[in-house]
C-alpha cells in the first residue's frame, strides 16, 4: 500500500497532533485568565478525534506502516473511550483549576499530548510503537503531576513518578530488546507466529517476558509494582489525579492486550501464571491497606490497585474463542472503572472549596444532612466500586468472574470475591461518615452549577448502566471478536 493512502488510517492521531500544537499556540497568544479558548479548543479536538476514530470503524482490521500500526475494532473502542474520558476529565479539571486560580493552558496541552500517546499505544502493532506511545504519554503525565509549582507534595509526587516510571520503562525496554534479539522481529503478529513455531529459545523468551510484564504491571499500578500509586495520587492536584485514574488505565490495558495477547499468545501458559500472582497480590494489598487510610485520595489509590488486580484477572482468559472466554470482561471492567473512578474523584473536586481539598475522610462527615443529593451520588459511586448491584460496578465484576470461571479458574474467582468483600469495608466507611455521623456544622458545597451537573450525570450513568449494561457488554464482546 502507498504511504499516502496509509496516512488516512492514522487520521485521528495526525489530527490530534495538529490540534494539540494549535492549542499550544493559541494558548500562548491568549491573555484571558479564564483560558476559555484553550479549554474549548482542547474539548473540540477530543470530540473531533473521537468522531474521526468512529468514522474509521467500518474499515475493519488493517495493519499499516509495515505492520507497525493497526486499526481494528478494539482500537476504535478504546480510542473513543480515551477521548470521551479525557473530555470529561478536562471539564472537571477546568472547574477545579478555575476555582483555585491555578488555571494554566499547559494542563490542556499536556493532556492532549498524553492522549496522543495513549492513542499510539492503543493502535500499536509492534514493540517499538508500544514503547513510543508509552513514553509520549508518560512524559506528559510527569509534567502534569508537577503542574502546581507551589506545592511541595506535588513536586515530590512528580519526582517519584518520574524516577520509578523511568525505571519501569527501562525494564520494559530491556525485555523488548531481549525478545527482539531472539526473534529478530518487532512486529507483534510476526512475533506470535515465531513463538508458535519456535520452541528452543523458550527460556530466553521467558526472561524477556518477565521484564515486559513488570513494565505492564507498573503502568497498571499492580502490586508489587504499586508503590508509586498512593504517593502520586495523593500528591497531585485532584484534577490531575482524576486524569491519572482514568484514561491512562485504558491505555495501560491496551498495552497489556497488545503485548500479551497480540504478541505473545502462544506463551499464555507462562504469562498466565505471572498474572495470577500479580492479580492476587494487587487485590490483597489494595483492599487491605486501603482500610487504614485516612486520606480519601490515598484510599482511592489503594482501591485503584485492587481494581487493577481485578482487571488483570480479566486479562487472564486471553482469547479462548472455542470456550467463549476472552478478555472482553477486562475491557468492560476498564470502561466501567473509568466511569466510576471519574465520579469518585469528581466528587472530591466537588466537595472541596477554593482553599481546601476535601481529601480527608473527616471532610465528608455529616454530608447527608448538608447535601442529601450529592451524598446519595457518592453512595452510588461507593457501592458501585464495591461491586454491589444494581450499579455498574457489579456487572464489571460479574463479567470478569464469568470469564475466569469459564476457563476453569474457580478457586481464583472465589479468592477474588472474598477480596472484594474485604474491599467493601472501606467503601462502607465513606458511606458511614456521610450518613451515620452527625456534626455541628456540616460542610457546605460551594461548587458551581456546571460541576454539580457533571457529577450528577456521572452518578446517574453509573445507575443507568447498572440497570441496562447490555449494550456496553454487547460492544465489548463484539469488539473482542467473539
Amino acid at each position, binding site marked *: 500500500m502507498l504511504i499516502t493512502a496509509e496516512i488516512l488510517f492514522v487520521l485521528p492521531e495526525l489530527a490530534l497532533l495538529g490540534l494539540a500544537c494549535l492549542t499550544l499556540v493559541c494558548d500562548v497568544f491568549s491573555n484571558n485568565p479564564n483560558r476559555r479558548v484553550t479549554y474549548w479548543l482542547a474539548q473540540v479536538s477530543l470530540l473531533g478525534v473521537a468522531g474521526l476514530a468512529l468514522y474509521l470503524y467500518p474499515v475493519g482490521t488493517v495493519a499499516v506502516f509495515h505492520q507497525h500500526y493497526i486499526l481494528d475494532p478494539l482500537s476504535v473502542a478504546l480510542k473513543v473511550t480515551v477521548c470521551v474520558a479525557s473530555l470529561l476529565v478536562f471539564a472537571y479539571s477546568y472547574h477545579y483549576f478555575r476555582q483555585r486560580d491555578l488555571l494554566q493552558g499547559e494542563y490542556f496541552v499536556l493532556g492532549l499530548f498524553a492522549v496522543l500517546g495513549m492513542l499510539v499505544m492503543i493502535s500499536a502493532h509492534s514493540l517499538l510503537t508500544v514503547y513510543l506511545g508509552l513514553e509520549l504519554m508518560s512524559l506528559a503525565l510527569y509534567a502534569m503531576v508537577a503542574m502546581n509549582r507551589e506545592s511541595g507534595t506535588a513536586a515530590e509526587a512528580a519526582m517519584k513518578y518520574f524516577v520509578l516510571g523511568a525505571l519501569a520503562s527501562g525494564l520494559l525496554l530491556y525485555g523488548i530488546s531481549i525478545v527482539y534479539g531472539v526473534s529478530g522481529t518487532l512486529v507483534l503478529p510476526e512475533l506470535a507466529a515465531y513463538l508458535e513455531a519456535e520452541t528452543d529459545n523458550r527460556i530466553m523468551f521467558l526472561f524477556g517476558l518477565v521484564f515486559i510484564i513488570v513494565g505492564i504491571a507498573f503502568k497498571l499500578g499492580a502490586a508489587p509494582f504499586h508503590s508509586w500509586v498512593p504517593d502520586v495520587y495523593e500528591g497531585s492536584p485532584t484534577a490531575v489525579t482524576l486524569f491519572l485514574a482514568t484514561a491512562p488505565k485504558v491505555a495501560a490495558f491496551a498495552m497489556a492486550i497488545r503485548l500479551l495477547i497480540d504478541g505473545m499468545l502462544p506463551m499464555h501458559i507462562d504469562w498466565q501464571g505471572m498474572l495470577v500472582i500479580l492479580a492476587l497480590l494487587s487485590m490483597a494489598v489494595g483492599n487491605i491497606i486501603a482500610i487504614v487510610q485516612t486520606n480519601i485520595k490515598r484510599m482511592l489509590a489503594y482501591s485503584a490497585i485492587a481494581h487493577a488486580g481485578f482487571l488483570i484477572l480479566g486479562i487472564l482468559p486471553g482469547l479462548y474463542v472455542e470456550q467463549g472466554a476472552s478478555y472482553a470482561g477486562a475491557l468492560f471492567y476498564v470502561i466501567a472503572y473509568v466511569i466510576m473512578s471519574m465520579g469518585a474523584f469528581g466528587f472530591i473536586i466537588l466537595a472541596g472549596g477554593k482553599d481546601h481539598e476535601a481529601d480527608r475522610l473527616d471532610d465528608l462527615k455529616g454530608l*447527608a444532612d448538608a447535601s*442529601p443529593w450529592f451524598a446519595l451520588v457518592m453512595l452510588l459511586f461507593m*457501592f458501585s466500586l464495591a461491586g*454491589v*448491584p*444494581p450499579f455498574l460496578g*457489579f456487572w464489571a465484576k*460479574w463479567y470478569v*468472574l*464469568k470469564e475466569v*470461571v*469459564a476457563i476453569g479458574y*474457580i478457586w481464583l*474467582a*472465589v479468592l477474588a*470475591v*472474598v477480596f*472484594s*468483600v474485604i474491599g*467493601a*469495608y472501606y467503601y*462502607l466507611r465513606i*458511606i*458511614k461518615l456521610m*450518613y*451515620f455521623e452527625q456534626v455541628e456544622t456540616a460542610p457546605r458545597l460551594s461548587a458551581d452549577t456546571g460541576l454539580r451537573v457533571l457529577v450528577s450525570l456521572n452518578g446517574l450513568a453509573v445507575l443507568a448502566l447498572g440497570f441496562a*449494561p*447490555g449494550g456496553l*457488554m*454487547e460492544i465489548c*464482546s463484539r469488539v473482542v471478536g467473539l
Partner: protein
Amino acid sequence: MLSPLFQSLPLLSLLIWAPILGGIFVLMLGERQQEAARLFALVVSILIFLLSAWLCYLFDNTATLMQFVEHTVWIDTFNINYHLGVDGISVPLILLTTFTTALVVIACWTVIQTRVTQYLAAFLILEGLMIGVFTALDAILFYFFWEAMLIPMFLIIGVWGGPRRIYATIKFFLYTFLGSVFMLVALLYMYSKIGSFYLFDLYRLPLSLAEQQWIFIAFLLAFAVKIPMWPVHTWLPDAHVEAPTGGSVILAAILLKMGGYGFIRFSLPITPDASAAMAGFMIVLSLIAIVYIGFVALAQQDMKKLIAYSSVSHMGFVTLGFFIMFSILEQAGSNTDAAMGLAGAMMQMISHGLISAALFLCVGVMYDRVHSRQIADYGGVANTMPVFASFMMLFAMANAGLPGTSGFIGEFMVILSSFKANAWVAVLAATVLILGAAYTLWMYKRVIFGDVANEQVAALQDVSLREVSFLLLLAVPVLLLGLWPAPLFELMDVTLRHLVEHIAQSKIN
C-alpha cells in the same frame, strides 16, 4: 378465569416497581413535606398490599407451572432475562412482605422524626426489591435484587438505629455480602456449563455429586447467613438490637425468610442429591439452633435480643422441615409425608414473620415510652397499659407455640414429620415448645406482671388508636392462621408436591 385485560397487566412488575418509584418520589418530596410523605407512603403501601391480595385472589392454586410470567430480554449477549413468575411458595411470602411494609409505615408515624422522607423511601424501595427476590425466575435477576436489598437495610440500621448501630450495620452488611458472593460463583459455574441462568434450566442441569456438593455449600453460605443458622447467626442479635423498630420488623419478618426461600428455590431443587447427602449435617445444625439458641434466649436481659435469639431458634424449625424430608424419602416414605415437612416449614416461615413482627412492635411500643429495652427496667406494665398487655399476651403465647395460634401449626407439622423420620430428632425439636414457652413467658412475666417497678412505668400511657390498629392487624392473621390454616396450605399444596417429586429424582447423570 382471567380476562384478557388482567392477563396483559404486568402485575408482578407493578408490585416491584411501583413501591420503588413511590420511594423515589417520597425522596424527592424533601424533608419539609413530612406529613405529605407519610400519607403518600401509607397510600402506596396499602395499594401495594391490595394489589398483592388481588394477585393472591387471581392465583390458580391447582396449576404446577409458574403463573403471571413476564419475560423480557435483559442482557441479550449472555442470555440474561427479566423473567418473573410466582407459584405457591412465593405468593404467601409476597403477601407477607406487602402486609408488613404497610404495618411498618403505620408504626413509624410519630416515632421517626429525623430524615422522615429518607426513612419511608428506604422502606418502600426495600419492599420492591424484596418482592423482586420472591418473583425472579432468572438467577442473576434474583441475585441482583438479593444484593441490592442490602443497601436500604444498611442505611436503615445505620441512620436510625441505636447507639452501636454502626458496628451492627457494617457487621450485617459484610456478613451477608460475604455469604452471597459464593452463590454468585456457583451460579457462574453452572452458567459455564449450560449458558443459561433460567431457574428451570438449572433445575434440569445434570451434575455429579461432587459438583452438587460444592454448589450446595456455596448456596448454604449465602442462605444460612440470611436465615440465620447456627453458627453464622451472630450478626442477627446485633442488627436486631440496634435497628429501629421498623428495621427489626422487616428484618425478622422478611429478610430471614429469604434464606428459607433460597433453600426451597435454589438449594433443594438444583442440588437434590447433595441436599440428601448433607441432610444429616443440616438437621444437626438445625437442632443445635433450636435447642442451644433456645437456652441462649433464656439468658437474655434485653427484650429485643431475646426475640432475636428466639427468631434463630424458630427458624431452626424451617431448616429442619426442609431437610427432614430427605430422611423420610430415604426410608421410602410417601411424597405426601415429605411434602408435609416442607409445608410445615413454609407455615413456620409465615407464622414467624407475623409473630416476630408483632413482638418487635410490642417492644417498640414500650421503648418509645421508656427508652429502654432492658427487662429489668420494666415490671407491672399490665397495671398501666392493660390493653397493650393483652395484645402482648396473645403474641407471647403465639411465640411459645400455643395451639390456636399460627405458631403452633408450623412447629407441630415439622415435629410430626420428624417423627416419621426419627423419633429422637422429633423429641429434641419438641423441647423448643418448652424452651420457647419458658423464655417468652418468663420475659412476659417480668415485664408485664407484678407490681409497678418504677416511676416511668407508673407514668405509662396505654396504647393509642394507631398502635391498637397495627397490633390488631397482626393479631387477626395470627389467630386466623392458627384456627383455620387450610387456605394457606391449599395455596401451597400443589407447588410443594410438585417440588418434592422433582427433588426425589436424582440429578446425577
